[in-house]
Protein backbone atom coordinates (compact mmCIF):
# COMPACT_ATOMS: atom_id res chain seq x y z
CA UNK A 1 0.00 0.00 0.00
CA UNK A 2 1.23 3.42 -0.91
CA UNK A 3 0.86 6.28 1.52
CA UNK A 4 -1.30 8.79 -0.29
CA UNK A 5 -3.10 12.00 0.51
CA UNK A 6 -5.75 11.56 3.24
CA UNK A 7 -9.29 11.41 2.01
CA UNK A 8 -11.76 14.18 2.68
CA UNK A 9 -13.43 12.16 5.43
CA UNK A 10 -10.12 11.56 7.16
CA UNK A 11 -9.20 15.23 6.98
CA UNK A 12 -12.58 16.23 8.37
CA UNK A 13 -12.19 13.77 11.23
CA UNK A 14 -8.72 15.07 12.03
CA UNK A 15 -9.95 18.66 11.97
CA UNK A 16 -12.89 17.79 14.24
CA UNK A 17 -10.56 16.04 16.67
CA UNK A 18 -8.30 19.10 16.59
CA UNK A 19 -11.19 21.43 17.33
CA UNK A 20 -12.29 19.14 20.14
CA UNK A 21 -8.83 19.24 21.69
CA UNK A 22 -8.77 23.02 21.44
CA UNK A 23 -12.22 23.27 23.02
CA UNK A 24 -11.67 20.88 25.88
CA UNK A 25 -7.96 21.25 26.55
CA UNK A 26 -6.44 24.41 25.15
CA UNK A 27 -9.18 26.97 25.78
CA UNK A 28 -9.92 26.08 29.43
CA UNK A 29 -6.22 26.14 30.19
CA UNK A 30 -5.78 29.47 28.47
CA UNK A 31 -8.77 30.81 30.39
CA UNK A 32 -7.33 29.52 33.64
CA UNK A 33 -3.93 31.06 32.90
CA UNK A 34 -5.62 34.35 32.09
CA UNK A 35 -7.66 34.13 35.30
CA UNK A 36 -4.56 33.52 37.38
CA UNK A 37 -2.73 36.39 35.73
CA UNK A 38 -5.71 38.69 36.24
CA UNK A 39 -5.93 37.70 39.93
CA UNK A 40 -2.22 38.39 40.37
CA UNK A 41 -2.79 41.88 39.06
CA UNK A 42 -6.07 42.60 40.87
CA UNK A 43 -4.85 41.33 44.23
CA UNK A 44 -1.38 42.83 43.96
CA UNK A 45 -1.74 44.54 47.33
CA UNK A 46 -2.90 41.33 49.04
CA UNK A 47 -0.89 38.51 50.48
CA UNK A 48 -1.87 35.94 47.91
CA UNK A 49 -1.69 32.14 47.83
CA UNK A 50 -0.81 30.35 44.61
CA UNK A 51 -3.30 29.40 41.96
CA UNK A 52 -5.83 32.14 42.74
CA UNK A 53 -7.94 32.75 39.63
CA UNK A 54 -10.30 35.61 38.81
CA UNK A 55 -12.51 34.89 35.81
CA UNK A 56 -14.22 38.26 35.91
CA UNK A 57 -13.78 41.75 37.20
CA UNK A 58 -13.07 42.06 40.91
CA UNK A 59 -12.68 45.36 42.65
CA UNK A 60 -10.10 44.70 45.32
CA UNK A 61 -8.77 47.07 47.91
CA UNK A 62 -6.45 46.41 50.80
CA UNK A 63 -5.38 49.00 53.36
CA UNK A 64 -5.04 46.50 56.20
CA UNK A 65 -3.87 42.95 56.41
CA UNK A 66 -5.55 40.74 53.82
CA UNK A 67 -4.50 37.18 53.20
CA UNK A 68 -6.02 35.02 50.51
CA UNK A 69 -5.37 31.27 50.54
CA UNK A 70 -4.41 28.94 47.72
CA UNK A 71 -6.62 28.04 44.77
CA UNK A 72 -9.37 30.57 45.30
CA UNK A 73 -11.81 31.10 42.46
CA UNK A 74 -13.62 34.33 41.65
CA UNK A 75 -16.21 33.91 38.92
CA UNK A 76 -17.38 36.69 36.66
CA UNK A 77 -20.92 37.81 35.91
CA UNK A 78 -23.28 40.73 35.66
CA UNK A 79 -21.89 42.47 38.74
CA UNK A 80 -18.26 42.65 39.81
CA UNK A 81 -17.22 41.01 43.06
CA UNK A 82 -15.77 43.42 45.56
CA UNK A 83 -13.24 42.56 48.24
CA UNK A 84 -12.27 45.35 50.60
CA UNK A 85 -10.08 45.34 53.66
CA UNK A 86 -9.91 48.72 55.35
CA UNK A 87 -7.21 50.25 57.48
CA UNK A 88 -6.24 48.21 60.51
CA UNK A 89 -8.56 45.37 59.52
CA UNK A 90 -7.82 41.73 58.99
CA UNK A 91 -9.28 39.64 56.22
CA UNK A 92 -8.38 35.98 55.96
CA UNK A 93 -9.75 33.63 53.32
CA UNK A 94 -8.94 29.91 53.42
CA UNK A 95 -7.86 27.71 50.54
CA UNK A 96 -10.13 26.51 47.71
CA UNK A 97 -12.93 28.89 48.58
CA UNK A 98 -15.12 29.86 45.64
CA UNK A 99 -16.82 33.18 45.00
CA UNK A 100 -19.51 33.67 42.43
CA UNK A 101 -20.15 37.08 40.88
CA UNK A 102 -21.43 40.07 42.80
CA UNK A 103 -20.13 38.98 46.20
CA UNK A 104 -19.30 41.86 48.47
CA UNK A 105 -16.77 41.16 51.17
CA UNK A 106 -15.87 43.99 53.54
CA UNK A 107 -13.58 43.91 56.54
CA UNK A 108 -13.42 46.87 58.91
CA UNK A 109 -12.07 44.90 61.86
CA UNK A 110 -11.83 41.20 61.17
CA UNK A 111 -13.40 38.75 58.76
CA UNK A 112 -12.19 35.16 58.71
CA UNK A 113 -13.30 32.65 56.13
CA UNK A 114 -12.36 28.99 56.29
CA UNK A 115 -11.30 26.60 53.58
CA UNK A 116 -13.49 25.13 50.83
CA UNK A 117 -16.34 27.57 51.42
CA UNK A 118 -18.70 28.55 48.64
CA UNK A 119 -20.18 31.99 48.21
CA UNK A 120 -22.98 32.32 45.69
CA UNK A 121 -23.87 35.43 43.73
CA UNK A 122 -24.90 38.63 45.54
CA UNK A 123 -23.80 37.45 48.95
CA UNK A 124 -22.83 40.30 51.26
CA UNK A 125 -20.46 39.87 54.15
CA UNK A 126 -19.55 42.94 56.14
CA UNK A 127 -18.46 43.32 59.75
CA UNK A 128 -19.81 46.85 59.96
CA UNK A 129 -23.46 47.82 59.59
CA UNK A 130 -23.42 51.49 60.45
CA UNK A 131 -23.86 51.09 64.19
CA UNK A 132 -21.37 48.55 65.28
CA UNK A 133 -18.31 46.72 64.15
CA UNK A 134 -17.98 43.12 65.18
CA UNK A 135 -15.84 40.35 63.67
CA UNK A 136 -17.29 37.67 61.45
CA UNK A 137 -15.99 34.12 61.46
CA UNK A 138 -16.97 31.61 58.82
CA UNK A 139 -15.61 28.12 59.40
CA UNK A 140 -14.66 25.48 56.83
CA UNK A 141 -16.95 24.03 54.15
CA UNK A 142 -19.70 26.58 54.57
CA UNK A 143 -22.04 27.24 51.66
CA UNK A 144 -23.66 30.66 51.56
CA UNK A 145 -26.37 30.65 48.91
CA UNK A 146 -27.57 33.39 46.57
CA UNK A 147 -28.35 36.80 48.03
CA UNK A 148 -27.72 35.96 51.69
CA UNK A 149 -26.51 38.73 53.96
CA UNK A 150 -24.25 38.07 56.94
CA UNK A 151 -24.47 40.75 59.61
CA UNK A 152 -21.61 41.76 61.92
CA UNK A 153 -20.63 39.45 64.75
CA UNK A 154 -21.94 36.17 63.40
CA UNK A 155 -20.07 32.93 63.42
CA UNK A 156 -21.07 30.27 60.93
CA UNK A 157 -20.16 26.75 62.01
CA UNK A 158 -18.36 24.25 59.82
CA UNK A 159 -20.32 22.50 57.04
CA UNK A 160 -23.35 24.72 57.58
CA UNK A 161 -25.50 26.10 54.83
CA UNK A 162 -26.96 29.60 54.69
CA UNK A 163 -30.02 29.44 52.52
CA UNK A 164 -30.78 31.81 49.64
CA UNK A 165 -31.96 35.27 50.58
CA UNK A 166 -31.55 34.84 54.33
CA UNK A 167 -30.30 37.55 56.63
CA UNK A 168 -28.10 36.06 59.33
CA UNK A 169 -27.96 38.03 62.57
CA UNK A 170 -27.17 35.24 65.04
CA UNK A 171 -24.53 32.54 65.21
CA UNK A 172 -25.17 29.43 63.17
CA UNK A 173 -23.96 26.19 64.80
CA UNK A 174 -21.99 23.61 62.79
CA UNK A 175 -23.95 21.25 60.50
CA UNK A 176 -27.05 23.37 60.35
CA UNK A 177 -29.16 25.20 57.85
CA UNK A 178 -29.89 28.89 58.40
CA UNK A 179 -32.93 30.32 56.70
CA UNK A 180 -35.23 33.30 56.73
CA UNK A 181 -35.18 36.90 57.87
CA UNK A 182 -33.95 37.01 60.61
CA UNK A 183 -32.36 33.64 60.01
CA UNK A 184 -33.07 30.70 62.26
CA UNK A 185 -30.94 27.64 62.16
CA UNK A 186 -32.04 24.06 62.16
CA UNK A 187 -30.07 20.88 62.23
CA UNK A 188 -29.12 19.57 58.80
CA UNK A 189 -30.26 16.12 60.00
CA UNK A 190 -33.79 17.45 59.83
CA UNK A 191 -33.71 18.40 56.17
CA UNK A 192 -30.98 16.43 54.46
CA UNK A 193 -30.03 12.79 54.48
CA UNK A 194 -26.67 11.62 55.72
CA UNK A 195 -23.62 12.47 53.69
CA UNK A 196 -23.38 8.95 52.28
CA UNK A 197 -26.75 9.04 50.54
CA UNK A 198 -26.85 12.76 49.73
Amino acid at each position, binding site marked *: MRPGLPTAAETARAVRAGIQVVRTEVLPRAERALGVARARWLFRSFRLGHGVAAYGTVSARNDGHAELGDKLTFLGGMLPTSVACYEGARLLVGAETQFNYGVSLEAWESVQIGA*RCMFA*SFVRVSDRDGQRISPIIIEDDVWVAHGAILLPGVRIGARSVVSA*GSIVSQDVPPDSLAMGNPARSMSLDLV*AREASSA
Partner: protein
Amino acid sequence: MMMLGLGPTVARLKLRRCESVGLRPTVWGRVWIHGEGEIQVGHRVLFDARMAPIELHAQRGARIVLDDDVTIEGGSSIEAQSYVTVGARSRLGMWCKVLDNMYHPLRGNRHARPQSVPIVLEEGVTVGSRSILLPGAHLQRGASVAPGTVISRRIPAGVSVGGSPARVLRREVAR
Protein backbone atom coordinates in the same frame (compact mmCIF):
# COMPACT_ATOMS: atom_id res chain seq x y z
CA MET B 1 -33.11 53.44 16.65
CA MET B 2 -36.59 53.49 18.11
CA MET B 3 -37.47 56.41 15.88
CA LEU B 4 -36.15 54.66 12.84
CA GLY B 5 -38.34 51.72 13.69
CA LEU B 6 -35.34 49.50 14.07
CA GLY B 7 -36.17 48.49 17.66
CA PRO B 8 -37.63 45.08 16.88
CA THR B 9 -34.87 44.32 14.40
CA VAL B 10 -32.17 45.15 16.92
CA ALA B 11 -34.05 43.18 19.56
CA ARG B 12 -34.24 40.20 17.24
CA LEU B 13 -30.51 40.48 16.67
CA LYS B 14 -29.87 40.48 20.40
CA LEU B 15 -32.12 37.46 20.83
CA ARG B 16 -30.62 35.57 17.89
CA ARG B 17 -29.58 32.65 20.08
CA CYS B 18 -33.18 31.94 21.08
CA GLU B 19 -34.94 29.01 19.47
CA SER B 20 -37.95 31.15 18.54
CA VAL B 21 -38.90 34.79 19.00
CA GLY B 22 -42.46 36.11 18.60
CA LEU B 23 -43.69 39.32 17.03
CA ARG B 24 -42.30 42.72 18.02
CA PRO B 25 -39.85 41.92 20.80
CA THR B 26 -38.31 44.83 22.71
CA VAL B 27 -34.85 44.69 24.17
CA TRP B 28 -33.29 47.63 25.98
CA GLY B 29 -29.75 46.99 27.09
CA ARG B 30 -27.94 43.70 27.16
CA VAL B 31 -29.44 40.24 27.31
CA TRP B 32 -26.98 37.43 27.85
CA ILE B 33 -28.01 34.08 26.53
CA HIS B 34 -25.88 31.17 27.63
CA GLY B 35 -25.98 27.44 27.31
CA GLU B 36 -27.10 25.04 24.63
CA GLY B 37 -30.68 24.63 25.78
CA GLU B 38 -33.78 25.90 24.05
CA ILE B 39 -35.24 29.35 24.75
CA GLN B 40 -38.65 30.27 23.37
CA VAL B 41 -39.80 33.87 23.47
CA GLY B 42 -43.42 34.83 22.82
CA HIS B 43 -44.96 37.92 21.22
CA ARG B 44 -44.28 41.47 22.46
CA VAL B 45 -41.87 40.37 25.18
CA LEU B 46 -40.04 43.25 26.85
CA PHE B 47 -36.53 42.96 28.24
CA ASP B 48 -35.69 46.12 30.16
CA ALA B 49 -32.00 45.68 30.90
CA ARG B 50 -30.95 49.32 30.96
CA MET B 51 -29.78 49.15 34.57
CA ALA B 52 -28.13 45.73 34.51
CA PRO B 53 -27.92 42.86 32.06
CA ILE B 54 -30.48 40.07 31.95
CA GLU B 55 -29.18 36.54 31.98
CA LEU B 56 -30.95 33.58 30.42
CA HIS B 57 -29.13 30.35 30.94
CA ALA B 58 -30.50 27.08 29.59
CA GLN B 59 -28.31 24.07 30.03
CA ARG B 60 -28.19 21.45 27.27
CA GLY B 61 -31.55 19.72 27.18
CA ALA B 62 -33.21 22.43 29.26
CA ARG B 63 -35.95 24.75 28.13
CA ILE B 64 -36.98 28.30 29.05
CA VAL B 65 -40.36 29.46 27.76
CA LEU B 66 -41.38 33.11 28.01
CA ASP B 67 -44.97 33.55 26.96
CA ASP B 68 -46.61 36.59 25.29
CA ASP B 69 -46.34 40.06 26.86
CA VAL B 70 -43.85 39.02 29.52
CA THR B 71 -41.76 41.82 31.03
CA ILE B 72 -38.36 41.10 32.50
CA GLU B 73 -36.42 43.82 34.26
CA GLY B 74 -32.67 44.28 34.52
CA GLY B 75 -30.42 42.12 36.64
CA SER B 76 -32.81 39.18 36.52
CA SER B 77 -31.39 35.83 35.85
CA ILE B 78 -33.18 32.67 34.81
CA GLU B 79 -31.15 29.50 35.01
CA ALA B 80 -32.72 26.32 33.72
CA GLN B 81 -31.32 22.85 34.09
CA SER B 82 -34.65 21.29 33.17
CA TYR B 83 -37.62 23.56 32.50
CA VAL B 84 -38.69 27.08 33.40
CA THR B 85 -41.86 28.63 32.04
CA VAL B 86 -43.16 32.15 32.52
CA GLY B 87 -46.83 32.68 31.67
CA ALA B 88 -48.42 35.44 29.61
CA ARG B 89 -48.46 39.01 31.00
CA SER B 90 -46.15 38.08 33.86
CA ARG B 91 -43.59 40.45 35.19
CA LEU B 92 -40.22 39.71 36.76
CA GLY B 93 -38.73 42.58 38.78
CA MET B 94 -35.14 43.68 38.99
CA TRP B 95 -32.46 41.34 40.33
CA CYS B 96 -34.78 38.36 40.42
CA LYS B 97 -33.20 34.97 40.42
CA VAL B 98 -35.00 31.95 39.03
CA LEU B 99 -33.16 28.67 39.60
CA ASP B 100 -34.58 25.23 38.96
CA ASN B 101 -31.62 23.50 40.54
CA MET B 102 -29.89 24.03 43.86
CA TYR B 103 -26.53 23.23 42.19
CA HIS B 104 -25.06 21.80 45.40
CA PRO B 105 -26.44 19.27 47.88
CA LEU B 106 -26.95 20.49 51.45
CA ARG B 107 -24.40 18.04 52.77
CA GLY B 108 -21.97 15.49 51.46
CA ASN B 109 -20.14 16.01 48.20
CA ARG B 110 -20.73 19.62 47.25
CA HIS B 111 -19.86 18.96 43.64
CA ALA B 112 -22.61 16.44 43.02
CA ARG B 113 -25.59 18.14 41.42
CA PRO B 114 -29.02 17.52 42.95
CA GLN B 115 -32.11 16.89 40.90
CA SER B 116 -33.84 19.73 39.10
CA VAL B 117 -37.47 20.57 39.75
CA PRO B 118 -39.18 22.59 37.00
CA ILE B 119 -40.42 26.09 37.79
CA VAL B 120 -43.80 27.21 36.54
CA LEU B 121 -45.09 30.77 36.57
CA GLU B 122 -48.65 30.90 35.30
CA GLU B 123 -50.44 33.84 33.67
CA GLY B 124 -50.36 37.33 35.10
CA VAL B 125 -47.87 36.64 37.84
CA THR B 126 -45.93 39.52 39.39
CA VAL B 127 -42.59 38.85 40.99
CA GLY B 128 -41.07 41.67 43.03
CA SER B 129 -37.47 42.69 42.77
CA ARG B 130 -34.74 40.68 44.47
CA SER B 131 -37.04 37.70 44.85
CA ILE B 132 -35.58 34.25 44.57
CA LEU B 133 -37.54 31.40 43.03
CA LEU B 134 -36.04 28.07 44.02
CA PRO B 135 -36.65 24.60 42.53
CA GLY B 136 -40.29 23.61 42.81
CA ALA B 137 -41.68 27.14 42.77
CA HIS B 138 -45.09 27.18 41.13
CA LEU B 139 -46.93 30.49 41.04
CA GLN B 140 -50.48 30.06 39.90
CA ARG B 141 -52.59 32.55 37.93
CA GLY B 142 -52.33 36.10 39.19
CA ALA B 143 -50.21 35.31 42.23
CA SER B 144 -47.96 38.10 43.33
CA VAL B 145 -44.71 37.99 45.20
CA ALA B 146 -43.45 40.87 47.33
CA PRO B 147 -39.88 42.09 46.83
CA GLY B 148 -37.16 39.99 48.43
CA THR B 149 -39.24 36.84 48.94
CA VAL B 150 -37.84 33.34 48.67
CA ILE B 151 -40.20 30.75 47.23
CA SER B 152 -39.84 27.05 46.61
CA ARG B 153 -43.37 25.70 46.50
CA ARG B 154 -46.81 26.18 45.00
CA ILE B 155 -48.51 29.51 45.60
CA PRO B 156 -52.26 29.36 44.87
CA ALA B 157 -53.93 31.65 42.35
CA GLY B 158 -54.52 35.26 43.30
CA VAL B 159 -52.56 35.08 46.53
CA SER B 160 -49.85 37.54 47.36
CA VAL B 161 -46.98 36.35 49.47
CA GLY B 162 -44.02 38.05 51.06
CA GLY B 163 -41.35 37.71 53.67
CA SER B 164 -38.83 35.04 54.33
CA PRO B 165 -39.94 32.31 54.90
CA ALA B 166 -42.85 33.29 52.65
CA ARG B 167 -46.18 34.05 54.29
CA VAL B 168 -49.50 34.87 52.72
CA LEU B 169 -50.07 38.63 52.84
CA ARG B 170 -53.41 38.82 51.11
CA ARG B 171 -55.85 36.58 49.34
CA GLU B 172 -57.88 37.86 46.47
CA VAL B 173 -61.49 37.13 47.35
CA ALA B 174 -63.36 38.09 44.22
CA ARG B 175 -62.19 39.07 40.79
